């Protein structure tokens, strides 16, 4: 009995040691992923994440101090791509927990309040604001990424964020939910 226990323990210990040594011996340096992350981020340096530019966020994310969901303008698509690099082993859905499939937003300028100061024009990372000095500015909806940069600089608070309006072309049918699924969920709840 004791014999068996001892031999098993010795075997376990020996094999464990072997595994440990092998881990040391064959240790693979993880490649730097900062560049990879930087390549996926929009590269607009809009500052919506709170880090100094996209590069700053990429470094923070590589260290693990920023979540993969830190880039609001990138949205879910970018977060999913980032999750595949930063936490490749985790289920992408759990990595993205808390990040609902947010509707894309765009900036909207209230023309009554706009003074044509050009501040937002200069700040916009994608050149989505058009206008000239002393003239009311407008947002090009297709180019706007909804990053808030213009909202922060506007001296008259004339810019707000709005849900991107659905166009006839972009509209599509909603996914039908089968009646019995809904029922069963209700019953289960």
């Amino acid at each position, binding site marked *: 009995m004791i014999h068996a226990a001892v031999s098993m323990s010795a075997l376990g210990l020996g094999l464990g040691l072997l595994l440990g040594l092998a881990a040391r011996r064959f240790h693979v340096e993880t490649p730097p992923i900062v560049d990879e992350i930087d390549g996926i981020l*929009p*590269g*607009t*340096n809009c500052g919506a994440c709170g880090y100094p530019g996209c590069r700053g966020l990429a470094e923070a994310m590589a260290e693990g101090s920023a979540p993969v969901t830190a880039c609001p*303008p*990138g*949205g879910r*698509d*970018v977060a999913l791509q980032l999750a595949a690099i930063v936490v490749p082993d985790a289920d992408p859905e759990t990595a993205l927990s808390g990040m609902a499939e947010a509707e*894309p937003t765009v900036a909207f300028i209230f023309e009554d309040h706009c003074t044509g100061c050009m501040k937002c024009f200069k700040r916009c*990372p*994608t*050149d*989505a604001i058009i206008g000239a000095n002393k003239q009311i500015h407008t947002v090009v909806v*297709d*180019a706007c*990424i909804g990053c808030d940069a213009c909202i922060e600089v506007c001296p008259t608070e004339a810019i707000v964020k709005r849900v991107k309006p*659905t*166009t*006839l072309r*972009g*509209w*599509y*049918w*909603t*996914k*039908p939910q*089968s*009646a*019995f699924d809904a029922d069963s969920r209700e019953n289960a709840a």
Partner: protein
Amino acid sequence: MSLPSFAALFRPSQLFTIRGGVHPETRKSLSSESAIEDMPLPSLIRVPLQQHIGAEAEPLVQRDDLVLKGQLIGKARGPVSANIHAPTSGRVIAVGHFTAPHPSGLPVPTITIRPDGEDRWGPRLARLRPEDAPPEEIAAKVAEAGIVGMGGATFPAAVKLNLRAKFDLHTLIINGAECEPYLTCDDRLMRERAEELADGIGIMARALGVQRVIVAIESNKPQAIEAMQRHNRALGFTLRVKVVPTQYPMGSEKHLVKILTGKETPARALTAELGVVVHNAATAYAVHLAVRYGEPLISRVVTVSGRGVRRPANIRALIGTPVADLLAHCGGLAEEPERLLLGGPMMGQPIQNRRVPIVKGTNGVLALTAGETRERDVMPCIRCGLCVQVCPVGLTPFELNARIQADDLQGAAKVGLLDCIACGCCSYTCPSNISLVQTIHFAKGKLAEEESRKHKQEETRRLAAARKAREEAAAEAKRQAMARRKAEMEAKKKREAEAAAQAQTAAPEAEPVQHGDATP
């Protein structure tokens, strides 16, 4: 697996078969015997600037402008777009947005006209003698008249007439199948205006430069077949009237080509690849009016039908007539309909707002009762395979549905999601009443959205890079300017110093003068 059907052995003409399809109750008798009637002018006309596939037209009028009938009010923008004309004379009371005749009910740019009641024609389009006009001019005339495919797809007709430039065309097929249940507008048009229609077909055949013209009519329209057979000559072309079996979706372009020629259009390609162009019968009539009389497309025949309508009828209505006015003209609604549709019951679009206008592609306004829609509770799929049997494209809709419900859109795309023509045969036949078509619509839309988002991501990166480059260039220019300025300043200082030193050594007495020179 499409074995030739048993019935094919007894079919007299040399037709080919297509796979699948369904035979819904046609219910065409509701309106097929009422002749096309004109409708009195509505009190308000709303003309959407987007009535066609492609870019929306650019408005040419402003509020309070007076317009004449046939006047160009929206100009085509881009290669795939169509002109929009004022359907009657009156005053423009708004150029803005109004609910689209579309299930989404989203706003669409719309010109609202209050008719003055006089229906005064403005200058018509220059007429053309198609017998000796070059094909390009015919196509240009069709484009000028703003004619789009009137079977519902609303693809600009002129673009299709210009395919001659790219493909070797030999056959024009006129689609008079009208396979959607209830609809009788093409049937009536062929019966009552066969001669004009034949002329329009001849004009199109000339524009396309084809040798063969086939008019395909479903077997359930004997009078239309007879009328078209009577008027089977136009502009030197002989129109071959072919009777196709009554089977939905016979009117699908590629399937019609298959059944008439036996050739199958490759996926994601045009029928023009086979040398065949398909046009709708109503489009031919519009072409006739445009070329012979210079009338742009400002009205169309609409079938108003369904058991919810008191007096089903075929009406020649102006584009922009509100649906409510059409219904009122047909005696109003007999009961609250279960579904109000634009188009046929298989592929038509449900609408909520009855004030939306009819557009160039609206071939029917249907008010269906519960007994007609047979909407039931959804049950689980029992894998009966009926959807697979009836799918004219050869897809497995139940599998697509399962994949999409499990959010596996890529997997669905792999098994043919994008080949679906949304004909609705699968949902029609499903004993569990599963909304297969809507699921497929959703998946297609979602995929397109993902695609455009990806595109936008790239676009954003490009914009950001461009901005960065510009900023860097600006900073570089600034730095250079600074450096140059600095260099200039230094050079100047140096010169001054040298000059001063020289002055001191050479002519100390002249110093005050020189000093004055040095400070401008």
